[in-house]
C-alpha cells in the first residue's frame, strides 16, 4: 500500500482520543479533516489581510481581493477549467446545484420536458430538480442501477429523447462508491441536446478531475470534503452558459448599473456571487488545493483504491456482512457501505464510537436509494489520504465486538 502515513502529522485532530481510544476517523465522505496548512491559511488571513474585496481602495482590500482571486485561479487549474471565469464560489455542492436549478433551470426547462437522474442521487442532486420539475410541469426519469450499484451508458441511452433537457448525476456515489462513466454520459446527453450537471462532491476530493476530459457543462463540489473549510464550495460552469444566465441571488458586488427599478449585471463569475463572499473560506480552499496537489491526486486515488480493497476484503471475511456497490475497488471510491445481520446501523455506530471509530450510520441523504436497496439505513466507512491499514483493523475488530454483543455472546 502506498504510504501516505506521514500525512497524518499534518492533521492535528488525528492526535485526539475519543472515549479514551485514539480517534479512527472513517467519515471523510461526510466531511474531511483539515491539515495545519489550511487552518493556518485561515488564521493568517484574519491576522494580516482581512478586508472586504473588490471594492477597496486600500492595501488590505487589495491583499484580500488578490488572495480571493488567487484561490479561484488555483481551483480552476485543479479541475482543468479553461479559465477562472467559470469558477463560481458558493457555500457547498448543494448551493451549486440549486444555483443551476434556479438560474438555468427556471428559464430553460418547460412543461413536459424531462430531467434524467440516476437511482443513486444524493438528496442535494434530487430535490432541487424535483422542485423545478413540480414548478414547471417537467418530469424526472431515473437511470436504473444494476444489482452491483452501477449502470451502463446504454441504460441512460434508453431514457434519452428529444424531451430531455438535462442529465444530472454524481461522479461518484456517496453510498455505493460507484464511479460513473461521466464522459460517456456527457457524449450521449449532448448528442440528444441535453446538458450535463455533475455532482462532484465525492469525486473532486478523491480523484484527478478534469472538466474538459469529463465533457460536462456544470460541476459542483464542496470544499469541506477536500481538506478545506466549511462554508465554501464551487460551481464550475461552461462560460458561454454562465454568460447567458441571469443571476440567482442579487445584491452587492454582482452589478454593473443599478437604477430604482432595474439593474444590469457584472461579468461572470461575479454575477453569481452576491454579497460579501466567504473570503477566508476561499483562501482556505486555495490552501487545500495546494496541499492536495503537493501530495498528488493520483497518489491519493491509488492509496484509496488499496485501502478500500483491504477494507472490502476484511469486512467480507467477517461473515454476516452485506456490502453494497461494485466489488472491484478500481471501479469505486473510498466509501464502503455495509450492514451486519442483526445489528442496526445506529447500534453499530454507537459500539464503534466506543472503540474510537467514527463511521456514519443512516440513509446518507439517499432515502430513495435505501428503499431500492431494501434497507432503512446502512453503516458507512469512508477513507481519505490519512487513513492507514491499522484503522481498518480497528474497524473490523469493533464490528466483531458489535456482532458478539448483539448475538448474546457478551465479550467481557
Amino acid at each position, binding site marked *: 500500500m502506498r504510504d501516505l502515513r506521514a500525512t497524518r502529522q499534518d492533521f492535528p485532530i488525528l492526535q485526539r482520543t475519543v*472515549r*479514551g*481510544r485514539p480517534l479512527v476517523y472513517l467519515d471523510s465522505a461526510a466531511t474531511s479533516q483539515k491539515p495545519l496548512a489550511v487552518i493556518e491559511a485561515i488564521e493568517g488571513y484574519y491576522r494580516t489581510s482581512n478586508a472586504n474585496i473588490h471594492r477597496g481602495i486600500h492595501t488590505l482590500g487589495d491583499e484580500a481581493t488578490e488572495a480571493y482571486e488567487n484561490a479561484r485561479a488555483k481551483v480552476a487549474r485543479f479541475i482543468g477549467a479553461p479559465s477562472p471565469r467559470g469558477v463560481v464560489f458558493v457555500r457547498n455542492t448543494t448551493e451549486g446545484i440549486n444555483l443551476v436549478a434556479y438560474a438555468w433551470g427556471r428559464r430553460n426547462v418547460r412543461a413536459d420536458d424531462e430531467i434524467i437522474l440516476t437511482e443513486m442521487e444524493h438528496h442535494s442532486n434530487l430535490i432541487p430538480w424535483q422542485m423545478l420539475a413540480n414548478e414547471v410541469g417537467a418530469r424526472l426519469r431515473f437511470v436504473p442501477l444494476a444489482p452491483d450499484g452501477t449502470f451502463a451508458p446504454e441504460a441512460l441511452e434508453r431514457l434519452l429523447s428529444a424531451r430531455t433537457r438535462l442529465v444530472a448525476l454524481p461522479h461518484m456515489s456517496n453510498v455505493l462508491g460507484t464511479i460513473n462513466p461521466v464522459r460517456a454520459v456527457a457524449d450521449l446527453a449532448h448528442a440528444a441536446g441535453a446538458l450535463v450537471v455533475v455532482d462532484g462532491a465525492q469525486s473532486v476530493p478523491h480523484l484527478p478531475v478534469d472538466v474538459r476530459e469529463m465533457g460536462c457543462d456544470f460541476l459542483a463540489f464542496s470544499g469541506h470534503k477536500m481538506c478545506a473549510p466549511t462554508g465554501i464550495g464551487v460551481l464550475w460552469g461552461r462560460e458561454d452558459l454562465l454568460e447567458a444566465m441571469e443571476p440567482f441571488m442579487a445584491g452587492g458586488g454582482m452589478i454593473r448599473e443599478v437604477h430604482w427599478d432595474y439593474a444590469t449585471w457584472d461579468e461572470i463569475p461575479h454575477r453569481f456571487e452576491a454579497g460579501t463572499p466567504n473570503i477566508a473560506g476561499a483562501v482556505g480552499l486555495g490552501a487545500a488545493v495546494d496541499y492536495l496537489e503537493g501530495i498528488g491526486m493520483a497518489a491519493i486515488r491509488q492509496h484509496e483504491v488499496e485501502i478500500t480493497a483491504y477494507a472490502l476484503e476484511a469486512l467480507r471475511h467477517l461473515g454476516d456482512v452485506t456490502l453494497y456497490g461494485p466489488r472491484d475497488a478500481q471501479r469505486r471510491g473510498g466509501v464502503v457501505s455495509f450492514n451486519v445481520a442483526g445489528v*442496526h*446501523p*445506529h*447500534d453499530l455506530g*454507537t*459500539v464503534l*464510537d*466506543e*472503540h474510537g471509530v467514527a463511521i456514519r450510520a*443512516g*440513509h446518507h441523504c439517499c*432515502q430513495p436509494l*435505501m428503499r431500492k436497496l431494501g434497507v*432503512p*439505513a446502512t453503516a458507512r466507512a469512508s477513507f481519505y489520504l490519512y487513513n492507514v491499514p491499522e484503522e481498518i483493523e480497528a474497524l473490523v475488530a469493533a464490528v466483531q465486538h458489535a456482532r458478539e*454483543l*448483539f448475538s*448474546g455472546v*457478551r*465479550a*467481557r
Partner: protein
Amino acid sequence: MASALDDLYRELILDHYRRPRHRGRIEPYDAQAQGYNPLCGDDLTLWVRLEDGRVAAVGTESNGCSISQASASMMSERIVGMTLPEVEQLIGAFKGMMLQGAEPDPDLVGDLEALQGVKRYPVRIKCALLAWNTLIEAIERTRGESGGRPATSE
C-alpha cells in the same frame, strides 16, 4: 469501554429488542399516531385502546435501532392498565429522567430505569424518546386535540 456499552445495552434492553412486546396493530383502537426521526430514519406507529378510562391495549409497528425498539416495547408493557393521568405522569418522569437528568422515582419508572445508559450517548436519546413522543400524540388524539402531524423526537 465494555462497561459503558454494557450499561447501554443491558440484558433487559437486548431482550426487549430481540422479543419486542405488543407488536402489531390492534383492533379496535381509540387512537393511532405515527412518529418519525428524519435523521435516523426510525419510524413507529402506535395504536391505543381505552376502556373505562384506562389503557386496555397497545400495539406498535416500527423500524429502528435497539434503543428505539426496546423503549417502545418497555413503554407498551408499562402503560397497559394505567389511567391517562397516570400515563402522563409516567411520560413526565421518563422524559425528565432522559432530558433533564432528574433522579427517577423508582416506583414510577420501574425497569425503564434501564434506559438511563442512553444518556451517555446524547445522539441516541431521541431514539429512546421516539415511542414516548408518539404516545403523547396518541393521547392528544384520544382527546381530539391534535393537528395530526407525525411526532418527532428531534
